[in-house]
Structures are given as C-alpha cells and as structure tokens.
C-alpha cells in the first residue's frame, strides 16, 4: 500500500505539473517581480537596483493616494452590500421555491448576462444614464422632466449601479449553493418547535447560509476594488479608482517602483480586510452540516 501511495502522489504531481508551472510562470513570477520592484529605486525610464522603502513612504503619505484608496474601498463596500442584499432573495427563491427540474434553467438565465461582454454592459449603462441617455430622453418624451437630469452620470452612484449590475451573478451562485446544502428537516424542526416562519429564517436558515453570503461578499468585493473600466467610462475618468491610478503610475508616468508599491499596498489592504471579514464571521463558518 505504501508503494501504491507513493505512486499515487507521483502520478498526481506529474499530472499537476503543467498547469502548476503555467500558473507559477505567468502569474506567481510576475507578482513576485512587482513585489521586488516595489523595494527598488526609480531612475528616469529605468529601475535602479538598490533597496529602498521610499516608494512605500511616498504611497502611504500621499493624500491623493489616500483619497483614491478610500474611494475604491467605499465604492467596493457599497457595491458588495447592494449586490449581496439584492441577490439573497433571488438565491432563496431559486433554492426554496423553484421546482428542482427548473433550477438549472433559472441559473442559466441568471448567468447569461454575466458571460456577455463586460465592456459593452458598462458602456450601455453610460448610454442609459447619460445626459442624452435612455432615462433622460425617455422621461423628456413622456413630459416628466424639462431638462435632462445631470446627476445620473459621472458620479459614484452611477459607478455603484453599474458595478452592482456587473457582479450580480457572482453573488447569487455562492448563496444559492449554501442554501441548497441546508438540510430541510432542520427548518421543519424549527417550525415544529413553535418558531414562526420569520424566526425560523432568522435563527436557522440565515446562519446556515452565512458561508455562502461571506463567499459572495468576498467574490464581489475583491474584483470590484480593482475595477478599471467602470471608473474610466462611467466616472468619465474624473473619479479614478485605484486600478486607474496604478495604470497611470506604471505606464503614463513610467514609475514602475512606485506603481508596484501602489499595487502591493492595494493587494495587502484587500487581503487584510478579507481576513478580518472572514474572522468576524468565524462563528458561522465553523458550522458544518
């Protein structure tokens, strides 16, 4: 059996080698390079190989970085909240109301918009919310308003709407999976023991669904922070988020060490916040059905 185990691991490792080396070469190595760059000095159009913490000092003391970072965080947090709150009833509906035979069709319908071009969906929100856009021209034709509403586009609210729309299916799927795993007899037990339907939901269903909610929140929060397209199109380039700043430091200003320090800082903040978030929900995550 020992030899069997050894050949098992050997076979497994041989099989996993190609995808693993690809991930190491194309993802891990570049990430480590960025990390290394962030500790080097910037020369004009070159990078001086000399250790320094100056980039981090510059990033952490810059008020513009702080503003943009806080904006990215608050936009991402708001998007996460809106997305998860809006998605939960849909996931609940899918899991508890829809007949088992039709679940796959509903899931398919929900995931389709997610697989269509992100860029086009973002741009269409610009078309919908714009000064001469669908909402304004529609309302004007109907005679509801005289002048186009200017507050619809180029602000944080419109970015939140766009991103919440873009990441909606991301939130539904993990919550749905968690709800599907719930043993239905637990809910019956709750009702039998005299809890109302609302209290059963609050004390049984919701805690058991929390792992899905936490996963959904993280899956929405992490990519939203790094979103580039929405601030560029919907924000009109005037309300940049951290991704736009990293891009301009790296490419337009060609300050790779500073850009790298910015990227590493952003990743650190996201990682720390995610860990805190998971730790806060530890109580729920420990529950195993």
């Amino acid at each position: 059996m020992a030899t069997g185990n050894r050949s098992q691991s050997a076979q497994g490792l041989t099989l996993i080698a190609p995808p693993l080396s690809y991930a190491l070469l194309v993802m891990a190595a570049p990430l480590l390079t960025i990390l290394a760059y962030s500790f080097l000095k910037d020369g004009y159009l070159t990078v001086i190989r000399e250790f320094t913490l100056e980039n981090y000092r510059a990033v952490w003391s810059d008020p513009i970085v702080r503003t943009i970072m806080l904006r990215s965080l608050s936009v991402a947090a708001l998007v996460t909240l809106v997305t998860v709150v809006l998605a939960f009833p849909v996931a609940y509906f899918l899991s508890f109301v829809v007949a088992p035979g039709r679940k796959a069709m509903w899931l398919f319908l929900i995931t389709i918009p997610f697989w269509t071009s992100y860029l086009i969906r973002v741009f269409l929100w610009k078309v919908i919310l714009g000064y001469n856009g669908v909402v304004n021209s529609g309302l004007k034709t109907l005679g509801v308003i005289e002048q186009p509403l200017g507050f619809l586009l180029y602000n944080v609210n419109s970015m939140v709407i766009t991103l919440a729309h873009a990441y909606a299916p991301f939130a539904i799927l993990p919550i749905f999976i968690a709800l599907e795993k719930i043993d239905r007899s637990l809910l019956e037990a709750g009702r039998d023991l005299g809890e109302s339907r609302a209290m059963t939901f609050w004390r049984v269903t919701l805690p058991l669904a929390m792992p899905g909610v936490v996963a959904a929140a993280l899956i929405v929060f992490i990519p939203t922070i790094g979103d580039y397209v929405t601030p560029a199109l919907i924000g009109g380039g005037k309300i940049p988020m951290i991704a736009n700043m990293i891009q301009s430091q790296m490419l337009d200003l060609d300050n790779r060490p500073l850009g790298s320090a910015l990227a590493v800082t952003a990743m650190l903040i996201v990682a720390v916040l995610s860990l805190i978030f998971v730790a806060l929900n530890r109580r729920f995550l420990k529950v195993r059905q």
Partner: protein
Amino acid sequence: MKGRGLHVYAICYLLFLYAPILLLPIFAFNSGTVIAFPLKGVTTQWFVQMFENASMRKALFNSLTIAISASVFATCLGVFAARASTRFEFPGKGPIMGLIMLPLVLPEIIVSISLLVVLLSIGVQLNILTVILGHTLICMPYATVILSTAFNSLDRSLEEAAYDLGETRWSAFRLVILPLVMPGIISSLLMSFTISLDEFIIAFFLAGNEPTLPTYIFSQLRFPKQIPMIMALGTMLVLMSIILLTIAEYFRRRGIAKTGAKDTGGFL
C-alpha cells in the same frame, strides 16, 4: 401562496440584469445617429457599415485567433489539473489547486500589469501572443472547474474494468475516460472561448498595437459618430456569446446525463 412575492421579485431582478442587453439590438437597428428616445426608424446600415470597416475586421480576426488558442491551451491545462485533483492524492494538493484557481479572484488589473512589467523588462514584443498568454491564465480556473465536475462524476470501476481487460493506462484514458468527459471538454472550450472573446483589461494592456474586438470598441467609444456601429457590433458579440453558452450548457447537461449523475446546475 408561498413564494409569490419572491417570484415577482426574481422576475424584476432578471429584467434589471437583462435591461442593458435588451437595449442593445433596439439601438443597433434604430436609424437615428444619437442613442436616445424617441426611436427614428428601422435600418440595417450600421451592420453594413460594421462589416465594411477594415479595422473592425482585423480586430475580429485577432479576437478569434486569441480566443481559439487560449481556449485550447486553457482546456488542455484544465484537463491535467482536473484529472490530478479528482483522481489522485498528492502532497501540497490544497495550496497547489488554490494557486491554479487564484486568477479567478485576483483583480485583472494586477494580473495584466504585473505580466506587462515582466514582459517589457525581458524585452518581449507585445502582440496577440502575449494576450493569448494572459487569456490562457484567466481561462484555466474556469476550465478546471468545469472539467473537475466532468471527471468527478466518472465511475472509477469503468477505468478499472479497462485495466482488467488489458488496456494500458494511456489507452484506458483514451478509450474510456476521454469519451466520457468529452462533453465537459467541449463545454470548457466554449466557455473559455467566450471569456477570451469578451475580455478587455488583459487585451488592453498586453496587445501592443494589435486591436481585439473589446479594445477596438473601447477606442471607438470616444467618437459619438461611431456609437451606432458599436451597438451593432455589440449585438453581434452578445448574440455570439449566448449561442456559444447555450451549446456549452447543452454539452454540460449531456455530460452529466451520460455519467448518470444528478444535475446540480450552474458552472461554479
């Protein structure tokens, strides 16, 4: 009646999800040059203009080349990862699989910028090959997930029966396992193709001067005159994605039916 309110809510939610996509064809066939209500008349001139546009055709050709290559590479790598993770136990399995799935949650801006910096510093010319490199990376986790479901529902006794009947490890894989997971492979190819076709950020940073459909669209959005044509192009893209996804879903379900497992639905 339980769930009536939820049903209404779910339908409203679907409408919200589909609102932008439903507007796309409306404006693609509208003869007005401004994207606004009221609509003018029906026209197909934007589609004609789109097909006559040489840079659009170049972008389309580039996008197809990238999407085909990336989906083939990602699916091949995914087959290895899925087979290894569903069939074998090996040291460091958790962290290794985690690393392979990481592109799923890593912001694309980080992936593309770090890859760009490395490619530039070792002096690689940016072209569609560099985009294929990046797209293969982000498609790999999706391929791995889809293929893992396919490999997972395999009955191991079928494989053992093949060994007992004198097949070698490779011929058993080719004759027994591969046909059974084939629907999963097709599904993975189609999903990866769709992801690559629609992907913008990586193509934006790694394509150099070569346009792909999304980067071409992005460059044209600044010109109001081009918008109706972009709407036509968007309609085509969305239509293509929906057709590919429907085929992918068909094969995914057929794969599950073939191995006799219960359909749990969904891609994740």
